[in-house]
């Protein structure tokens, strides 16, 4: 009986949105959607779901840590045109690859799928229209690299 109760409480606590982003809303930050530098493109990273909020994997862009995939959060980076790979690691390493062009804006959405011990957070390249509409409910995390 006790065990069942503990298990129930554990599941309840695990499902609460602890660990969600706490920064200012997208509408308050109002970032430019394109890079200020004509030689660069802008990549937005965001995660809309609060599911598995306690899992906040580092976001690696071509091997460099640029932020964390925090639930209900977003951040962006500017990079020169070229080929890019975004990798998130939880139980497994998941990768999304894409091309960034000068003046282009790309959106990487982080989704959560079931894992064995923990959820898997993985990036997905989405249409600009989808990214623009979904990111507005996210909060700015400022590319937390700590």
């Amino acid at each position, binding site marked *: 009986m006790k065990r069942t109760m503990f298990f129930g409480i554990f599941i309840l606590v695990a499902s609460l949105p602890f660990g969600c982003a706490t920064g200012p809303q997208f509408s308050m930050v109002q970032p430019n959607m394109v890079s200020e530098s004509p030689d660069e493109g802008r990549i937005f990273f965001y995660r809309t779901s609060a599911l598995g909020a306690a899992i906040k994997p580092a976001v690696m862009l071509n091997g460099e840590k640029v932020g964390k995939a925090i639930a209900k959060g977003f951040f962006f980076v500017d990079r020169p045109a070229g080929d890019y*790979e975004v990798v998130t690691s939880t139980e497994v390493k998941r990768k999304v690859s894409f091309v960034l062009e000068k003046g282009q804006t790309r959106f990487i959405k982080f989704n959560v799928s079931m894992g064995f011990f923990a959820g898997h957070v993985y990036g997905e390249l989405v249409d600009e229209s989808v990214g623009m509409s979904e990111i507005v409910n996210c909060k700015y995390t400022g590319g937390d690299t700590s």
Partner: protein
Amino acid sequence: MARLKNRISFVLLVGVAFVAGGCAFDLAHVSFEPTQFVQPLDHCKTFVVANDVPIDAPCNYDRLLRKGSSWKLVGTIPKGEVYKPLDQVLTVECSNIFEAYLVVSEGHMVGFYLPVEKGFVPLSKGIELPME
């Protein structure tokens, strides 16, 4: 008796965790052939998809070429011409996700070109593209 059951459950749990801990979740890979990509002579060639075109992509992650979407010629590979989407994102997905362009030969989509990996992913059967 209850104690024995608990012990057996514990041993089973540890056993499963031990076995599964060594498992790779990343089991589904996109198979692609490295290919040679050549810039096109005609940089202005485009087409518009006249109707929605569903595609049976690898790993059962189906894709849709949307009606009205525009595609621009960006190069050629031995299997056909490579067209990049101008107004929709196209990806191939298994455990990992790859941005993809269309490979078209004689009016049929024959596969995907992965611009980062510089590889070709063939379709099992060509799909006729309704072009405008």
